[in-house]
């Protein structure tokens, strides 16, 4: 049994420098560092993210608490309480996410900017990532690629991802049988097939020396982002993802501020959970109460810092930048 860390001293120095640089970056911009609970009475309802639960007591009554999968709900409560621009560096936990690019316990940087559009926030994400990465990656391109989710599928497969009719489903099935023949399409819905093609066929084409921003996701993938109804009547989620090469680094939203829609998102996610046989998750009533009170118009983003560190240290597995990853934690 090996007691030793799987990282080396160089990556520990890089992590310490990265954390210091991040704090300096936000200090310069007057964004306030905050802390929120890691162990909460409510959990993330997203059917594709699973929380760890731990037994607890409340006034003598057994009550499970959830380890947070991101600090989104309580940070929005701070926004509603008038905190202004805020950021947080914290550990988060996602059950069942393990692999070369995933450790179930990982470090997230999440921040919110009041009055920002996703376009402005994408620019700030780019500034931060260039600030952190450029000194270590001389080949990093100054030019970012900005492309919509729709354009990705049109360019690669001449397929409009926002149309989910019978013809589109058949075309998706055919594409998967051609490009990912070992994947069984029988129980994949329209969105899951898009997810498969994006991760297996489109992401590998991303520029390995430059940032790629993908924006305007299908409305079904909005999570807590606003929906925009375009001129052609297509609804898109005002969300973006940022990549360097194939490595997905972060995920940003134009935050939904409408109370009713925030309620129905959490409700719908639990309904979806039921349909796929997953346990119901306690909805965050404190968050919804804050949404009722009024979350200011804002944009927010979360960046996986272990992935950023992998790029800085030029290593191919997340276990090499975490001192004691899951299997030896």
């Amino acid at each position, binding site marked *: 049994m090996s007691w030793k860390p799987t990282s080396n001293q160089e990556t520990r120095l890089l992590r310490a420098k990265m954390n210091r640089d991040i704090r300096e970056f936000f200090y310069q911009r007057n964004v306030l560092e905050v802390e929120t609970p890691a162990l909460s009475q409510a959990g993330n309802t997203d059917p*594709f993210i699973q929380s760890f639960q731990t037994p607890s007591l409340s006034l003598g009554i057994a009550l499970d608490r959830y380890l947070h999968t991101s600090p989104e709900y309580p940070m929005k409560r701070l926004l509603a309480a008038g905190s202004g621009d805020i950021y947080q560096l914290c550990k988060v936990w996602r059950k069942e*996410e393990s*692999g070369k690019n995933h450790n179930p316990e990982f470090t997230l940087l999440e921040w919110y900017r009041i009055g920002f559009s996703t376009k402005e926030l994408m620019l700030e994400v780019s500034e931060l990532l260039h600030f952190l990465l450029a000194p270590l990656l001389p080949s990093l391109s100054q030019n970012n690629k900005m492309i919509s989710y729709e354009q990705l599928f049109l360019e690669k497969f001449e397929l409009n991802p926002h149309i989910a009719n019978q013809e589109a489903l058949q075309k998706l099935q055919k594409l998967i049988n051609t490009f990912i023949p070992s994947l069984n399409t029988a*129980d994949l819905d329209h*969105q899951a097939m898009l997810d498969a093609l994006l991760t*297996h066929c489109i*992401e590998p084409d991303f520029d390995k020396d430059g940032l790629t921003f993908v924006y305007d996701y299908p409305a079904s993938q909005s999570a807590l982002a606003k929906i925009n109804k375009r001129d052609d009547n297509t609804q898109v989620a005002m969300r973006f993802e940022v990549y360097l090469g194939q490595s997905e680094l972060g995920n940003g939203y134009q935050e939904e501020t409408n109370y009713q829609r925030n309620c129905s998102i959490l409700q719908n996610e639990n309904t979806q959970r039921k349909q796929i046989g997953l346990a119901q998750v306690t909805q965050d009533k404190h968050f919804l109460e804050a949404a009722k009170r009024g979350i200011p118009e804002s944009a927010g983003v979360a960046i996986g810092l272990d992935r950023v560190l992998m790029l800085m240290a030029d290593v191919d597995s997340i276990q090499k930048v975490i001192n004691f990853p899951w299997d030896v934690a």
Partner: protein
Amino acid sequence: MATYNTSEFKNGLKFIMDGDPYTIVDNELVKPGKGQAFNRVKIRNLKTGRTIDKTWKSGEKVEAADVMEVDMEYLYEDGEFWHFMEPTTFEQHGAGEAAVEDVKHWLKAQETYIVTLWNGAPLTISPPNFVELQITECDPGVAGNTAQGATKPAIVETGAQIKVPLFVEEGEMVKIDTRTGEYISRVKDS
């Protein structure tokens, strides 16, 4: 019937697919930020040795395979089975032709081999990387001939045909790499 969820996948995990036992060589979780995750996995068929790529929707299950790798001593062949013994329990296992096919020319009594058992029966045999075997047949050695690369055919005690340098004599012990079948060196008399 034991099953493994894709979230339990890790290198070396053994499972059954389409009736054959497989082992996981490489496992990667891919996830598009939000939405459906997939496991992109490289798996090796333990029967054929072939490695293939496979993608599962995360959350799916596979049937666990009762596969174990055990160090065993080779005993003898009786024309139908090749017999191996677990050195601690003295339990014996007979391996059929299919299991020993690739290695039967490297089987020497009392040597230790890795026997992969599937449901308790030998599935494949892996020889050690290097074995020391006696030359049973080759042309007489040419004294002083150490010309680079010059070789002659020879047969060793287990029946394998190899190429040896010209100076090697019948009856000598030689060290052989079983992965390539190449002669490495003479073994000095002790």
